């Protein structure tokens, strides 16, 4: 075994499993490449996809010859970087504390991490407006009273405010992307550091952070692009104050008040995202090429052990409490408040006298069983397909020596680099044109497919980070005993990255539950899901009713997260 390790022979995928995996990776790539190509072609045309028009640069002229666009680019980069700073201020320590230390109530923190996503972002935005608006913000009023100020000390209607709120909201996906890497980390290096008298914080910075660099970098790049794409916070907090980012421009181009959506113009704006994604993918390749540096699970012994926090325990708990107050407690209290009042208002004695359960009683009017059933099917199937494809792709990228494997990784990142609405429009158009071969148009299956493809980028980022940490010697040893590649994957790789697989599955399930843009674009009478119902309630001005539905969904999904986690942990133990 030792000799094998020293030789560092590259693992070669033989036939026939090589072929099977190659075919699967190629099929997955096609599902990604075709919609992306459709978007690129659309950006060179005027009109709707499918409408005959000559190729033109008109959309690019309109998008990039306008000085306004460059101001928007500056805003976007500032917003994305600011958000990343906030995310990592919370996500990295949280992942280390929850996965590597003996912090109490570990399960509770893990469950809470998964719960924040359930609260619709537009309701979180309303919560922050009620808390920090310069005019009616409860916290601002409190500060003004305590400090004797004439004007509000904090405003969220600026890039700082937007970045702060977006960062808080996007911390959980970063957590899940890097938590698995911390979980599977061999503690021998930490122990060596402690024996040498190095403190816990220094160990975190110089040992843990460096060993989990691929996972952290993957999360940074993934969330950088996510921040460029997300619409709700820029739309609800930035746009009202005329702070535009690319997602707002894409939104306005695809949702004009009258006339037809300008998908071509939106596609041209979207190319910026694609360029940034390619640049970030290149950075990522450079790191994962050096993957042997980050191996922590080897054949000689793997025994993750928790670090004792000692006197730091209460400080660590306070840190997590502070984060969850911002991410869940304050928005959830606001959500409950909004669901109990007839209209959005600041808490007051008069407002308390108006508290009612009427909004909850109306919820059945807005739903029915079909959207619930559709949502359950969507949440179970989309993450399963997505994780299956991600595992195949990640294995080829990290484990094989196939030429162009890094290109495959770039392809896996593509769906994330195009705006969801454009991705859904392209997919819908392809399904429409080829409906005789693939009868998906207007079905729930197309929403499942859209989500499965869209989140392959999330799945591959997380699984790449986990696979990198496993030394090849384990697989090489199995290969020496004559095990096939599929058997190696099933018996060695999957059990070792079980936590990452499960976390990714769960997180994709929750992302799928909340995803609304693609579901709205692909909607038909047969495939209405809950996320579109909540969005439509909000869009129709029924904010308290949307909040009531949101509260109910939080409890249902909390149950889902707890049950899924129990089943998942049991499953991992039996692997």
């Amino acid at each position, binding site marked *: 075994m030792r000799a094998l390790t020293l030789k560092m022979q590259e693992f070669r995928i033989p036939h026939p499993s090589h072929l099977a995996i190659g075919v699967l990776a190629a099929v997955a790539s096609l599902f990604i490449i075709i919609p992306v190509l459709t978007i690129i072609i659309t950006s060179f045309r005027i009109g709707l996809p499918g409408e005959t028009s000559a190729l033109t640069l008109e959309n690019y002229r309109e998008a990039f010859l306008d000085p306004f666009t460059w101001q928007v680019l500056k805003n976007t980069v500032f917003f994305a970087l600011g958000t990343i700073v906030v995310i990592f201020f919370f996500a990295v320590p949280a992942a280390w504390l929850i996965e590597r230390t003996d912090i109490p109530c570990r399960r509770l923190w893990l469950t809470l991490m998964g719960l924040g996503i359930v609260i619709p972002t537009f309701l979180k935005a309303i919560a922050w407006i009620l808390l920090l608006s310069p005019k009616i913000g409860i916290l601002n009023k409190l500060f003004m009273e305590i400090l004797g100020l004439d004007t509000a000390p904090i405003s969220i209607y600026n890039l700082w405010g937007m970045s702060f709120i977006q960062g808080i909201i996007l911390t959980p996906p970063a957590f899940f992307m890097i938590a698995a890497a911390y979980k599977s980390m061999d503690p021998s290096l930490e122990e060596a550091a402690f024996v040498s008298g190095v403190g816990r914080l220094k160990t975190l910075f110089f040992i843990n952070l460096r060993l989990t660099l691929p996972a952290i970098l993957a999360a940074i790049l993934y969330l950088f692009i996510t921040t460029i794409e997300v619409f709700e916070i820029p739309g609800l907090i930035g746009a009202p104050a005329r702070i535009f980012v690319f997602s707002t421009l894409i939104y306005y181009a695809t949702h004009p008040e009258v006339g037809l959506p300008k998908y071509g113009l939106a596609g041209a704006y979207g190319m910026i995202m694609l360029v940034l994604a390619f640049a970030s993918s290149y950075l990522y390749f450079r790191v994962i090429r050096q993957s042997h540096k980050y191996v922590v699970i080897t054949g000689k012994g793997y025994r993750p052990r928790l670090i004792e926090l000692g006197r730091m325990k209460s400080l660590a708990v306070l840190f997590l409490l502070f984060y969850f107050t911002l991410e869940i407690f304050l928005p959830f209290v606001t959500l409950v408040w909004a669901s109990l009042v007839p209209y959005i208002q600041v808490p007051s004695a008069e407002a308390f006298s108006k508290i009612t359960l009427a909004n909850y009683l109306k919820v059945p009017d807005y739903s029915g069983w079909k959207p619930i059933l559709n949502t359950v099917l969507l949440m179970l199937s989309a993450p399963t397909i997505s994780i299956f494809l991600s595992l195949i792709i990640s294995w080829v990228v990290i484990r094989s020596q196939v030429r162009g494997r890094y290109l495959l990784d770039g392809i896996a990142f593509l769906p994330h680099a195009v705006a969801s609405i454009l991705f859904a429009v392209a997919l819908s158009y392809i399904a429409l044109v080829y409906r005789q071969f693939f009868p998906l148009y207007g079905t729930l299956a197309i929403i499942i497919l859209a989500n499965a493809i869209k989140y392959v980028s999330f799945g591959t980022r997380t699984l790449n980070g986990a696979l990198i940490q496993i030394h090849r010697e384990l697989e090489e040893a199995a290969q020496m005993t004559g095990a096939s590649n599929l058997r190696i994957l099933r018996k060695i790789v999957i059990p070792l990255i079980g936590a990452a697989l499960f976390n990714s599955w769960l997180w994709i399930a929750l992302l799928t539950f909340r995803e609304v843009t693609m579901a709205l674009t692909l909607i038909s009478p047969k495939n209405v899901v809950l996320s579109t119902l909540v969005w439509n309630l*909000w*869009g129709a001005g029924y904010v308290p009713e949307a909040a009531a539905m949101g509260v109910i969904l939080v409890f249902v999904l909390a149950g889902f997260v707890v049950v899924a986690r129990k089943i998942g942990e049991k499953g991992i133990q039996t692997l």
Partner: protein
Amino acid sequence: MRASVRFLLTLLFLGLLTSVFPAQARASASDQRLPRLIEAARQEGVVDFAGPASLTPAGAQALMDALNKKYGLSLKVNFSPLTSYTGLVAKIIAEAQAAQTPTYDVILVTDAHIVSLYSRNLLESFDWAGTFPHIPPQSIMLDNQAVMTDAIFAIPAYNTRLVRPQDVPKTWEDILDPKWKGKIVVSTGMQIWTRLTQRWGEEKTEEFMRRLADLKPIIGRYPEIHPRLESGEYAIAANQLSPFITGSEEKKAPVAYALEVKPIVVLLDVMTQVKNVRHPNAAKLFMAFSLTPEGQEIWWKYGKRTSPFVKGTPAWKFVQGKELLFGDKDFLLKREEELIERYGKIIGLR
């Protein structure tokens, strides 16, 4: 030869009949057409309907239940609630180009959105007046290709706790008063201003928009600005749509219309049927039923909107004695899209 003479004589006789007794002939045709339509609808069994989210699935079901009761049917409705009509219009055009049977049998969009479908000749024409005498003639639009089911009104609105009665705007120009600087919200919906252009002209409207932009308003979509007005974050909205105001009134939220402002801009909601749908007869019945008093009652209960042309409805009562401004079809076709973009840029939108 004798047979053809007999045929010609029969035609002549029928022609005479219909020219001497046109009303009776029409009534007779109508009498037969409706039962045939009902029977055909019974065979189809279902209607796929895309409409405003504010109607809610329960509202759509209530409409269908009432229709079934009226005509002795047991039709089902599959309702897709929508908040963006442009995406729906784009979908319909894409389906027509791909020769795909339309997803929806009936759609409800605004008069501004329907022009994209009308100008592409995608809509089904039907003798609405001849088949459904209850439909007011003013509701039949675009060469029998659509029926107007309800109207939405737009004028400035204000928070009653923050605006004193003497400060409530009495004209459109009153919202430009510098006292509203930092206190006003403006919807991203520029349609109101393009409609006012019909009355004011482009030069005056552009100047109006510049002065409005000088007030540094907060901007947002209608559902976004409304909670801000209700919560008191902002005192006044340059305009707000009537379903939101009606909703506020029902909830006793401190929001009201500046009712002295005129003209009141009217946006029309129209129902239409795209060509080659799966359930054309059930769809027509559903469209026509929306304009019956029972149908209007349901539209009011759930969607907070009714037709000003159906006597006795809340919209009919509201418009009595008011100065209204409707969109002109030719104007909408030729100018509205461009003006919306121009005014949007002035106010700070892209």
